């Protein structure tokens, strides 16, 4: 086993992780900061974000409005102090990225251009064509290269958090290239590992999004918050699940059912106008649009293809010039993957799992209840997204809370002495566990692909856009049995060098843990709110459920759920109104 040490260890090299690392390097240049990631940072899933990043910058807009849009969009489950901090700090963070070189789209006079986005009452979404996440990630990554103090562990897979004396003191990780086990001690650990879309079969998420950080924290005793809130993006390509950005609608795209009818007008989302109207119709929030699709499907008004039901996203009236200027990636993706030119044809789309509102519970500074452990980005639940995130809020969330977590973790690390020696014993135990599980464990019979497929089926059937008690209970039982069967996993690959079957197995075990928290939280929230719709409890119930579900790992059996109230500062719960 290899031993190394740093002061602040950032797990994950996406938007939040890199921003956190820079925050540490800038505020505490004397600290040793390291970024450990199972992929090279520029492969992180931030790269796939398309539409944009919201921050108030234009005259006529206000922080209050951004906060209100976010809170009402989140169906009043957002912690309002966190939202206020978020909207306040987002503009400076976005500007900082501009100063670092992010190629934001511009107005003719050279100032930042913004576009409308779903659920937002004002135009405040900054964008770099329709590859915003890609440009943000590469800008951040290339900027980190100038800080010599930021050390990187590329292609290191974290298997465990080291916790001793009640605080997090580092990680155990596998160096993928060699299979060597490393114990990396740290005075503070920041989880920035992204979400867990791969728990579901049909998702926009990349293969790497397996809820690693969520499971690591959960196993270390930190709770996962609001895991029942899974965002379906209304427009994904059938089969591949490739995301067609919301910007396609914000630029004026229409959603049409099989009769060519803009069906959203039937779902209390406003009247169809030829030009896009803010907070109306196609610019409604994602949860409502995805739910409308299911209702439309029940009415038999969707189209049917080899990969299930779909509707049409019509961009033809936007014209080639606008599409090439503002949505070039949409055109590229459609041409490449479905052989359709959106300039001339309608795009087949259907709702697809996109984002986790829930995650590792943190306070407004990214600190988890476990001392020394921080989290930021999709892995975390601060929570600013409540029961439904608004499009273009997640990228600035990575920046704002990445920076906050970085600064606070650095300050925390600066005051601490070296880690306790007993963590090494833990690290050795972990090494032994991995060795036993993956090198010797022959003779078992369960395959990764089988278990994963069954988990996918279970999640899609029970924890989709609409849920009900019996299906969720059945899913909870099924996940229990999958956990049991995971013990009998067999691998074809017992080698050390770049063993991707081993990482797939570890990822599956993470996903099973996370899936259980999703199902258990969904089971216990007997109301409907935002993206969590219970057919057996169709109404929002502020009396009993204006609170966050915290899922704790139980020694044996399903996760234990506890409740904490939502923080309300200025916006008492109200009705979500769109298009009126």
């Amino acid at each position, binding site marked *: 086993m290899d031993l190394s040490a740093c002061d602040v260890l950032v797990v994950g090299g996406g938007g939040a992780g890199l921003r956190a690392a820079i925050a540490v390097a800038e505020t505490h240049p004397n600290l040793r900061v390291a970024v450990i990631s199972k992929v090279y940072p520029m492969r992180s*899933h931030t*790269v796939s974000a398309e539409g944009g990043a919201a921050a108030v910058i234009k005259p006529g807009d206000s922080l209050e409005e951004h906060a209100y849009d976010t809170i009402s969009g989140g169906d009043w489950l957002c912690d309002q102090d966190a939202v206020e901090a978020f909207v306040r700090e987002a503009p*400076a963070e976005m*500007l900082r990225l501009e100063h670092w070189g992010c*190629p934001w789209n511009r107005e003719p006079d050279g100032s930042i251009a913004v576009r409308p986005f779903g659920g937002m009452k004002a135009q405040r979404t900054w964008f770099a064509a329709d590859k915003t996440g890609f440009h943000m990630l*590469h800008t951040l990554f290339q900027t980190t290269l100038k800080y010599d103090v930021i050390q990187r562990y590329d292609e290191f897979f974290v298997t465990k958090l080291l916790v001793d004396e009640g605080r997090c003191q580092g990680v155990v990780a596998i160096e993928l*290239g060699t299979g060597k086990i490393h114990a990396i001690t740290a005075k503070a650990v920041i989880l920035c590992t992204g979400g867990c879309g791969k728990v579901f079969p049909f998702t926009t998420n*990349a293969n790497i999004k397996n809820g690693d950080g969520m499971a690591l924290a959960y196993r270390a005793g930190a709770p996962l918050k609001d895991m029942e809130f899974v965002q379906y993006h209304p427009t994904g390509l059938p089969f591949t699940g490739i995301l067609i950005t919301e910007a396609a609608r914000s630029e004026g795209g229409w959603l049409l059912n099989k009769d060519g009818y803009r069906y959203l007008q039937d779902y209390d989302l406003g009247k169809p106008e030829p030009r896009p109207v803010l907070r109306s119709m196609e610019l409604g929030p994602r949860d409502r649009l995805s739910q409308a699709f299911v209702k439309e499907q029940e009415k038999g008004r969707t189209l049917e293809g080899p990969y299930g039901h779909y509707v049409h996203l019509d961009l033809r009236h936007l014209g080639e010039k606008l599409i090439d200027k503002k949505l070039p990636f949409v055109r590229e993706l459609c041409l490449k993957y479905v052989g359709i030119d959106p300039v001339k044809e309608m795009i087949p789309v259907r709702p697809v799992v996109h984002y986790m509102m829930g995650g590792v519970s943190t306070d407004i500074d990214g600190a988890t209840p476990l001392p020394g452990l921080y989290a930021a980005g999709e892995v975390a639940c601060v929570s600013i997204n409540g029961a439904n995130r608004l499009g273009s809020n997640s990228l600035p969330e990575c920046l704002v809370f990445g920076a906050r977590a970085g600064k606070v973790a650095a300050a925390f690390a600066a005051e601490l002495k070296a880690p306790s020696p007993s963590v090494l014993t833990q690290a050795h135990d972990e090494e032994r566990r991995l060795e036993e599980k993956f090198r010797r464990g022959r003779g078992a019979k369960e395959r990764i692909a089988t278990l994963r497929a069954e988990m996918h089926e279970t999640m899609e059937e029970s924890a989709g856009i609409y849920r009900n008690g019996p299906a969720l209970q059945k899913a909870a039982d099924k996940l229990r049995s999958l956990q049991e069967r995971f013990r009998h996993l067999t691998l074809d690959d017992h080698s050390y060098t770049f063993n991707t079957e081993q990482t797939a197995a570890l990822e599956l075990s993470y996903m099973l843990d996370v899936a259980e928290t999703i199902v258990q939280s969904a089971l216990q929230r007997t109301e409907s709110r935002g993206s969590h719709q219970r057919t057996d409890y169709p109404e929002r119930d502020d009396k009993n459920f204006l609170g966050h579900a915290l899922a704790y790992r139980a020694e044996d059996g399903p996760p234990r759920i506890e409740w904490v109230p939502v923080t309300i500062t200025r916006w008492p719960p109200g009705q979500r109104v769109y298009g009126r």
Partner: protein
Amino acid sequence: MPATVALAVARYRPEEEPAPTLQTYEVPFREDWVVLDALNYIKDRLDGSLSFRWSCRMGVCGSCGMKVNGTPVLTCAAFLSEHLPGPIRVEPLDYFPVVRDLVVDLSDFMRKLKKVKPWILREEEKPLAEGEYRQTPDQLDAYKQFSMCINCMLCYSACPIYGLEPSFIGPAAIALAQRYNMDSRDQGARERLEILSGYDGIWQCTFVGECTKVCPKNVDPAGAIQQYKLTSAVHWLKTLLPWGAR
């Protein structure tokens, strides 16, 4: 359309064998499958020990570059139907050391990327309070193309010069340096000149042009390098003048 298609996949198990071999797998043929889907089918159903990198499956993360029938491509964007009848040969990218099966080592590129200083260099930072640097759409357009690089390494794998002269900084890194040189917010062109115009820089390039041809994002690194040669030559001429740049 055939019911199945054969994939001849390069295997290299460093713990067992001295050199790579080809292993053939029969996978179902599906019209909308890309080569990566077939590899995943193999990994899930036929042979869990096959190793390769992949992530986004939408051509933007840059993980899944491999050689398919001899040409470097993103396997998530290479349809099986484009490579019929098979067997489809899938190999790791050329000119990089092979770690295992289809996985190559990228540390050389990561070092080179840092060398060209791909970040905004300025004599003086503008305070955040003063807002954004103004940049007109035309100024954005001047470097936008070079900013589209996803670091997929296809260009290195297509560049015989990189194969022959591994110290060559190479297409992607030079294009990224040029991305910052051309950015109206940047003032670091002089600082980057040293490395770009140095022994391992642009002058190694003989304009084979293959890097641009295989680039999945139309970055045109070959163009970036040629344009930079002109910049560097003009700079050289200026240094001859007594009042010129030094």
